[in-house]
């Protein structure tokens, strides 16, 4: 709840978004007993709809989750007519939404089922339904946010994993490191590459680092600048950096961009770079 920024004020704002006022609370109170006595019917409307949707199989076939979801939905409906839509209520909504996200319930399917639930509620709430509807939209807002937040969280975790996988620092032999760079280098990744490399230079007591950029299709001025900085930083720590695998196109574009790589030792291919590195190490 905190991670999503749902403070007391934010919840208050959300109530204001759907236009929930004191008048609505009286309306809802009037519908309370009618909803309470028919609560199971509404729960059935929601889950009955899901049962017929192939995309909702994940929820319907997971007995444990389904039981919990029904129980939480029942709680939801009862809380919906209680008239208190504060932090406790929001907490309950998030819990149910997280369950939906875990079982992979799609947003569109959920909205379909929720629509059925509203139809069912309309039948018993009658004139009081519009007020109840505001609460329902307040709930939908929360649930959508959780589903989106969870999805974004997965993406964040994955991209983090890819980043970590994509910048290995390999030890070829005593005091010689290889840093193969593959794919697109953006500012964030360049930063990460530099930090990984500097930490490895320290840990492995490296004297020479071969940075292979064969797998980098394009190098723009920003990336070139980052590479230059990496070379300079490694040198400050006493390690020489040899850059290998700058393709003809990349070399031409670097020259065209007017980037001065004069201070960088560049060797055509990885083999040549490693040979040169060995020579440097032998000199000591």
């Amino acid at each position, binding site marked *: 709840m905190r991670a999503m920024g749902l403070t007391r004020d934010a919840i208050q704002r959300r109530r204001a978004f759907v236009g929930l006022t004191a008048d609505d609370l009286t309306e809802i109170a009037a519908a309370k007993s009618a909803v309470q006595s028919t609560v199971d019917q509404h729960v059935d409307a929601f889950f009955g709809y899901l049962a017929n949707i192939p995309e909702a199989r994940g929820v319907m076939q997971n007995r444990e989750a389904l039981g919990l979801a029904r129980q939480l939905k029942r709680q939801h409906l009862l809380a919906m007519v209680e008239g208190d839509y504060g932090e406790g209520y929001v907490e309950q909504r998030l819990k149910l939404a997280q369950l939906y996200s875990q079982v992979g319930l799609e947003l569109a399917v959920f909205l379909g089922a929720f629509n059925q639930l509203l139809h069912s509620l309309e039948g018993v709430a009658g004139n009081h339904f519009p007020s109840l509807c505001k609460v329902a939209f307040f709930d939908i807002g929360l649930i959508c946010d959780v589903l989106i937040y969870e999805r974004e969280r997965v993406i964040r975790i994955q991209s983090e994993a890819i980043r970590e996988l994509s910048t290995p620092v390999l030890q070829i032999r005593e005091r010689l490191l290889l840093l193969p760079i593959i794919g697109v280098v953006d500012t964030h990744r360049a930063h990460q590459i*530099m*930090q990984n490399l*500097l*930490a490895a*230079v*320290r840990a492995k*007591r*490296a*004297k020479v680092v071969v940075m292979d950029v064969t797998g980098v299709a394009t190098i723009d001025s920003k990336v070139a600048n980052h590479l230059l*900085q*990496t070379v*300079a*930083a*490694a*040198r*400050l*720590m*006493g*390690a020489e950096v040899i850059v290998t695998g700058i393709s003809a196109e990349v070399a031409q574009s670097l020259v065209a961009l007017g980037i001065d790589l004069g201070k960088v030792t560049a060797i055509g291919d990885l083999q040549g770079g490693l040979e040169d590195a060995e020579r440097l190490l032998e*000199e*000591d």
Partner: protein
Amino acid sequence: MPVPILKQGDTLIASIVAALSDDDLLQFRDDLAQKIGTVRARGVVVDVTALDVLDSFATRTLRGIALTAKLRGAETVIVGIQPEVAYTLVQLGLTFDGISTALDLEEGLALLAAKKQARK
């Protein structure tokens, strides 16, 4: 706090163990220039392992120290620059151009020995 300067053969070893004020740095510079002459040192190792920050003044002064030492006939190696410090220095565009750097004290001494060998 003054920086202790130790003599080891014809090499001076100065280990900066805590963050230095600007005055301390200048004092260190003067001491070192003086001492190179008195002990006829041919090499200087400045160890900055303990520093987790190097500002532009410190960088410039260290550079000045190395250039001064050179004029006095001693080669300077700056050793022990931490990864974070190295990163910050290049971000700020501060580099020890033309000055040797090495991973740690051991490497620094080895570098000086290699240079001495080359002179012979």
